[in-house]
């Protein structure tokens, strides 16, 4: 296992799977502006996926492409965090998931712009601008709905309670993260966690939402040991055409 390849798959699989989830909203959002914004977010994430998985495929050096990685791996070879695999639920749950991811994504990408690997720094520099915008939007929406009506507040609190145990995985370092940090490729996740916690706390305070009093964090997504049951269902859709018509050009 090459930790650099693993790391790049983590970055790309997160954006791929979250992009897929967000794209499920197309045509079904509460207002047109949100349809546009969600499609735009999905589009950015898929674009970032092309860069991360493209680099991963190069680093692997087995002649695979970004599309091969996206379309021809089974669930166990994915390195997406559990958070991004979670179902959309209602619009509030989708935006809560988005914010919990965006806040981490932003800090991570900021750190990665300083990577000793120029290709990583370059991708991060491109992505960080998009993600800066994502986090502005998702935090505004979480605040607006959290501090909106009683109904919207309760739904957002329920979404936070549901998704909170999936946020911790993003910031919990493992051997791959440690190796990446040691090599100067990626930032220290414990530092990211501090910034992440501060960011989450301030947004939730403004949103009048209470962060659950538990640090329990599910794990198994980014290591690939134990994904959610959702991932397999995502793949049946996502990979359908490539699996059904192997070798075709689209």
């Amino acid at each position, binding site marked *: 296992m090459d930790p650099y390849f693993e790391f790049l798959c983590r970055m790309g699989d997160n954006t*791929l799977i979250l*992009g*897929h989830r967000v*794209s*499920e909203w*197309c*045509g*079904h*959002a*509460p*207002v*047109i*502006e*949100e*349809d*546009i914004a969600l*499609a*735009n977010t*999905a*589009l950015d994430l*898929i*674009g970032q*996926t*092309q860069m991360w*998985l493209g680099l991963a495929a190069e680093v692997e050096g087995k002649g695979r492409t*970004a*599309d091969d990685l*996206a*379309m021809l791996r089974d669930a166990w070879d994915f390195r997406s965090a559990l958070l991004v695999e979670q179902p959309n639920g*209602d*619009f*509030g749950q989708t935006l809560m998931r988005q914010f919990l991811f965006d806040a981490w994504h932003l800090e991570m990408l900021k750190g990665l712009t300083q990577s000793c690997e120029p290709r990583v720094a370059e991708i991060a520099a491109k992505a960080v601008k998009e993600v800066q915008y994502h986090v502005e939007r998702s935090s505004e*929406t979480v*605040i*607006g*709905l959290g*501090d*909106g*009506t009683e*109904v*919207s*507040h309760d*739904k957002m609190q329920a979404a936070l309670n549901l998704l909170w145990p999936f946020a911790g995985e993003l910031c919990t370092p493992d051997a791959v993260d440690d190796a990446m940090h040691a090599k100067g490729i990626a930032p220290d996740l414990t530092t990211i966690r501090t910034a992440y916690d501060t960011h989450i706390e301030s947004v939730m305070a403004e949103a009048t939402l209470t962060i659950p009093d538990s640090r329990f964090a599910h794990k198994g997504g980014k290591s690939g040991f134990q994904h959610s049951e959702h991932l397999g269902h995502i793949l049946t*859709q*996502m990979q*359908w*055409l*490539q699996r059904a*018509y192997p*070798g*075709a*050009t*689209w």
Partner: protein
Amino acid sequence: PEKLATFQARIDAGDKIEPKDWMPEGYRKTLIRQIGQHAHSEIVGQLPEGNWITRAPTLERKAILLAKVQDEAGHGLYLYCAAETLGVTRDELTEMLLDGRMKYSSIFNYPTLTWADMGAVGWLVDGAAIMNQVPLQRTSFGPYARAMVRICKEESFHQRQGYDIMMKMANGTEAQKRMAQDALNRMWFPSLMMFGPSDAESVHSEQSMSWKIKMNGNDELRQKFVDQTVPQAEYLGLTVPDPDLKWNETKGGYDFTGPDWDEFFEVLKGNGPCNTERLAARNKAWDDGAWVREGLMAHAAKKRSAKMAAE
């Protein structure tokens, strides 16, 4: 009547009518109906293509399709804004869509069944839409004409992307070729329907023509579409599903079989393959989104009053 004459003279002179200008009630109503239907078509039109976003075969195709569907929502937005200048709100128009008082283009009541449909929708449906819309860039109502300029530019981009998908399929494996032909078989006649019934049977047409809300006859545009599209199909190596299609040297265009107008009117009545699903999807989106719209409005109101209190 004097106002009316001046109004018609302005139109005849090629002036643009602007929202604050006087206009006859019929002009206003017809425009609201037409722009509203067009806006609804963009919104409902997200659904058949949205159906394949999660199954797009490559990351690149997924991105292109996402961008396209996003553009459609954007078109819907411009058009609702254009309609709003006529004194109707977006929510009013939306409610008329949702309860069936207003229509959207019947083409979106057909299903998208294979990836080739993403090509065929771009090539044929956007192709037919452009044919309808290009002349509307010169329509008499300013906001509508300006929206059309922007929309047409993007639509022709979409059409090229659709044709590109068809090219890939037509030059692909046997299965892909078959997929492409199957898509053409299903989409051909519904695309011809997009120009509306024969002029002879079309209501409102004459008045709309003189107001420059409608610029061309339905049959004329349909003929133009066929003449443009048949060579494209030939280039793809696909067969237009019309055994009676043939070049007519005298008229300098193709003779072709018209669509099944009984089917067209069934679709208008709600009996298309997907009418129920499309409307159900839009109603669900609207109903499920109510708490979100209310929540965000409540928050905005809180912020406004906090700001006022601070001042």
